[in-house]
């Protein structure tokens, strides 16, 4: 293990920019990461008639959007960092993009690091865009006192989701398998993690299961920073700790599984395409 040199950092920066550019030019990613969450925001608002609700304590009335905007933001972050990393990496492997990279002097760690960083940056950008609409249009409040905790949660959450995404991507043997794997892991967990429904009334066993996954911690820690009437910095050390542990697990599994030799040439993608066509 050698320390990265200055030129390696320049290389990482270059690939990071390229990854963000590629993400922003990919139609599917733009629709699901940027457009779809905005549509959700507008729909939720329409369904609720932009109702005002009484907040706990002295905060007075706040728009209902105050509660679901942070959740939609985490949904958007998950799409950018988790789902798109799984599908993207599996597709890259299937189309032999990873093999191309392996044949060049570009270290795989820089390539994958740029991939994760690019996904995280895109996700954070999507969240910023969401709030840029929600604050002026729907009257959502961003509190200065809790902003540091919100930003830290967002950044750690992005790192966590993309590294877990990379680990899960190694489970998909083909690009075809990647989408169901991504959706079947994300959707059920999202329902028990408080993105769509608050977890307050849920039975204990369900909450226990939810807390075993990182998403609930990200949602909880982020939502808290937008909770009206919250006092102090709204830091959630327990959640942040869990997010950090999951990031480490994701990176560990990914680096362990990411060194395998590709299959025998007879099992290459060319054959698979033929079989599918037959």
């Amino acid at each position, binding site marked *: 293990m050698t320390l990265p040199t200055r030129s390696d950092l320049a*290389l990482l920066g*270059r*690939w990071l920019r*390229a990854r963000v*550019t*590629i993400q922003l*030019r*990919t139609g599917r990613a733009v629709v699901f990461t940027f457009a779809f969450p905005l549509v959700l925001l507008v729909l939720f608002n329409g369904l609720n008639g932009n109702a005002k609700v009484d907040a706990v304590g002295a905060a007075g009335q706040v728009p209902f959007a105050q509660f679901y905007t942070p959740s939609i933001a985490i949904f958007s972050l998950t799409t950018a960092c988790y789902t798109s990393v799984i599908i993207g990496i599996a597709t*890259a492997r*299937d*189309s*032999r*993009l*990873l*093999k*191309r990279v*392996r*044949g*060049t*002097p*570009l*270290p795989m760690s*820089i390539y994958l690091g740029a991939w994760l960083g690019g996904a995280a940056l895109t996700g954070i950008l999507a969240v910023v865009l969401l709030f840029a609409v929600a604050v002026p249009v729907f009257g959502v409040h961003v509190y200065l006192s809790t902003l540091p905790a919100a930003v830290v949660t967002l950044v750690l959450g992005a790192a966590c989701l993309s590294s877990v995404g990379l680990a899960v991507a190694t489970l998909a043997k083909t690009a075809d398998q990647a989408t169901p794997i991504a959706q079947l892991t994300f959707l059920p967990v999202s329902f028990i993690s408080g993105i769509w429904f608050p977890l307050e009334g849920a039975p204990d066993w369900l909450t226990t299961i939810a807390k075993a996954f990182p998403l609930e911690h990200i949602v909880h820690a982020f939502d808290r920073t937008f909770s009206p009437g919250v006092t102090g910095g709204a830091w959630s050390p327990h959640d942040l700790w869990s997010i950090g542990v999951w990031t480490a697990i994701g990176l560990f599994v990914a680096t362990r599984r990411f060194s395998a*030799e*590709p299959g*025998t*040439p*007879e099992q290459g*993608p*060319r054959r698979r395409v033929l079989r599918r066509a037959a």
Partner: protein
Amino acid sequence: MLTNDLEVTVAARGAAAAEQDLAIRVRGLRKSYDGAIQALDGVDLDVRRGEVLAVLGPNGAGKTTLVEILEGHRAADAGEVSVLGHDPAASERAFRARIGIVLQEDGIDGSLTAREAVELYSAAYPHPRAAAEVLDLVGLGDRPDIRVSALSGGQRRRLDLALGIAGDPELVFLDEPTTGFDPSARRHSWELISALRDLGKTILLTTHYMDEAQHLADRVVVIARGNVIAEGTPDTLGRGAGEAALVAFRIPYGVAADELPWPADAEIERRERHVSFRTHTPTRDLAPLLTRAAENDIELEALTVTRPTLEDVYLQLTEEPA
């Protein structure tokens, strides 16, 4: 005694110099998949620096496995492999900075432009070539800002070639570089590969096209069933191991075959007026025949003298034993 020592020293120096002159040296290379399929069964191979070597062989012969081991994509089961003095299996960054790989069907991000792709993928090499220059070389210089996804099949292959040489490597691996090209694109690629050779690059190419090997390669290696079964220059291989030239013509009407001076030691095949024989000395054997024909104003119809082509030899060599 003194002379002997001197001779030994000179011989040893010669051997060392020859070693250094090698870009690729392979001895006893073996590789099997799942312990069952013996893809490579003791391959020996030398490629000199600056040489263009064509590796021929039917599908499943072990070509791809051999090339992938040389590129560092796969580890060998047994044998010595040295590529530019490196063990490719170690996959060192310094090694990968000195080779260029042009594989069929390797993926590339479709939303990048051709220029961006060349710049991005060559950024990790110590001395990359300018993107504009590389795109000019492969004939994409007029459309550098076209998206990769918008390139035609042939243009994509040219971009693959551009990515393979953008890092200015010493050794270039070309996997069937012109498969699927139209004739003019093929000619263009041949010119490009010749240009690379003129720059002193070592090139290892696999191909199915005999004319491609004949046109581009200094030397040809034929691989079948996991072994090198023949090697030589395209011409010596084409001549084959003792393969004789084939003389064929038609005897005109009104000429009796007995009137002609046939070569004594050739086995002559006759089917009605069609005559053919194989000979190692076509000039000597044809001289009396042609003299007699010319003296008597006889035209030997459809007279041909042909040597087996590389293709004939290849087909003969790689034929599965019955």
